[in-house]
């Protein structure tokens, strides 16, 4: 068995499992946010059980539309507030941060534990060794009621990392590159497992970035293992980090990826650094370093969105907020709004955006005609300064 199979076998209380086997797995943490929780709560009430499986292991987080941009969005928060009071589950509704970052900060699963969140980027926790499976609201309701999740054991595609990465290559570039190799659906119903000596080049935060975007390749689970190669995988790909250069996803697919050098010089009008993909302290550090003593290009609206209040506080302590503001950029409150076109930074048909977020589908950030490029914080910051897509310095 490979590591994914070992973890799933343990969660299901079985000695051995193999691909295709149907399992009922014990869940360690369950969570939902203000877009998915209201329907999950509706479905939970329809099931008709009187309590959640373990209130201490259920968290509801208001991050997608915070502060509320409409009365309807605010009504959804009240649905969560009522439920949290009635069932005694955790609720974060004061802008504490983005769900995948808050689960890391406040309810961190141990390696091998199963985390079920009603959000497609649940794979993020694979960066710290937990098995994250993203679900919709109905499955989340069932998991809240039973503490179990039914799934089938996926085939595993292993990425064996070797080599030393160049100074301008980050976790984001690794997963974008894999998008160009695999496309958007090669990994549907499969798991993506990273192993090899190269994983020691990547911090936990960067591993979380990589796992965050596994879903853009279709994967069900994305996980970091150890430096040892895992047995019993369906596919095995060796990737030399030393051979990578900075990558960028062009409109309108996260898998439409080329080296940044290929599109360098393209004029841009907005930069967004943040989200569950790249809103952590190491990401903010890239921006602060690049912006120190400089000014962003006058044509570029630059938005910096830390993934949690804890990160924002640390940025303030280190003087990074001032550096970023002095450079002419805007530090926004933690949240998901600018990433998915809800509020706080919508793009019009005239905009060309470089964003560190995870999706550049048509209309993702507002206008169907807005061009969105996805890249690392280093590439985004370098581009904000020049007003053009720019390869960051190594």
């Amino acid at each position, binding site marked *: 068995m490979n590591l994914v199979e070992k973890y799933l076998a343990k969660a299901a209380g079985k000695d051995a499992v193999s691909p295709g086997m149907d399992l009922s797995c014990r869940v360690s943490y369950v969570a939902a946010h203000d877009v998915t929780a209201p*329907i999950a709560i509706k479905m939970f009430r329809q099931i008709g059980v009187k309590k959640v499986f373990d209130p201490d292991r259920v968290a509801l987080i208001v991050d997608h539309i915070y502060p509320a941009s409409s009365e309807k969005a605010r009504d959804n928060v009240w649905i969560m507030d009522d439920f949290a009071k009635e069932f005694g589950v955790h609720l974060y509704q004061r802008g504490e941060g983005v769900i995948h970052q808050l689960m890391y900060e406040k309810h961190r699963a141990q390696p091998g534990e199963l985390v079920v969140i009603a*959000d497609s980027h649940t794979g993020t926790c694979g960066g710290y060794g937990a098995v994250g499976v993203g679900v919709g609201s109905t499955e989340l309701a069932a998991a809240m009621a039973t503490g179990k999740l039914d799934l089938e054991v996926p085939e595993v595609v292993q990425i064996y990392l070797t080599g030393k990465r160049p100074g301008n290559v980050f976790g984001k570039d690794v997963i974008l590159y894999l998008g160009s190799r695999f496309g958007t659906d090669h990994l549907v119903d499969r798991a993506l497992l990273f192993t090899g000596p190269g994983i020691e080049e990547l911090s936990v935060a960067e591993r979380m970035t990589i796992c965050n975007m596994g879903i853009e390749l279709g994967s069900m689970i994305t996980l970091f293992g150890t430096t040892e190669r895992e047995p019993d995988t369906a596919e095995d790909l060796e990737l030399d980090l030393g051979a990578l250069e900075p990558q960028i996803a062009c409109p309108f697919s996260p898998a439409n990826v080329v080296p940044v050098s290929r599109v360098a010089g393209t004029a841009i009008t907005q930069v967004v650094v943040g989200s569950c993909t790249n809103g952590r302290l190491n990401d903010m550090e890239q921006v602060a370093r690049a912006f120190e003593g400089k000014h962003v290009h006058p044509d570029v609206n630059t938005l910096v969105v830390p993934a949690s209040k804890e990160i924002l506080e640390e940025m303030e302590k280190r003087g990074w907020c001032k550096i970023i503001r002095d450079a002419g950029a805007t530090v926004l409150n933690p949240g998901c709004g600018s990433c998915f076109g809800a509020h706080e930074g919508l793009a019009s048909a005239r905009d060309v955006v470089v964003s560190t977020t995870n999706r550049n589908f048509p209309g993702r950030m507002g206008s169907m005609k807005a061009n969105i490029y996805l890249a690392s914080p280093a590439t985004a910051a370098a581009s904000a300064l020049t007003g053009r897509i720019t390869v960051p310095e190594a």
Partner: protein
Amino acid sequence: MDIIKGKVIVLGDDVDTDQILPGYAMAEPYDQLGKFAMAGLAGVDFKTVYEPGCILVAGRNFGCGSSREQAPIALQQAQIALVIAKGFARIFRRNAINIGLPVWAADVVDSLKTGDQIEVDLEQGTVTVNGETKRFQPMAENVIKTLSYGGLIPRVRAELGITE
């Protein structure tokens, strides 16, 4: 399950959840989502080809992107009878079945055009157009069972014997 008959609307690959239900509609009340079905579709003005009871026929990776259950709910409220695609993103596929919207993986997109009237028998795995019937892998029994209950919640309630 009954045979599904309807007008086909042909779509491309990678129709993502932002196209099926755009981010701006995510805070809409549950029963209003149908109005926004396919409002973000790229390349086709959905309103001009849509009719209630129609069948969406797509290429690879239909429903990729977000876990928003609002996406299949919007299609269901807009009375989309069925989605047939070469392949579905995992979360969308499960969401659709969980709410009782039939979605079926079959490679028919290249042999149909928008406006065709088709008949689909999911249990037999057949698609009939202009009197000609083609066979595909039938829908899985477990999926048919969930759909026959109208979704996962009614199925779970029935199996747990909850009646109140």
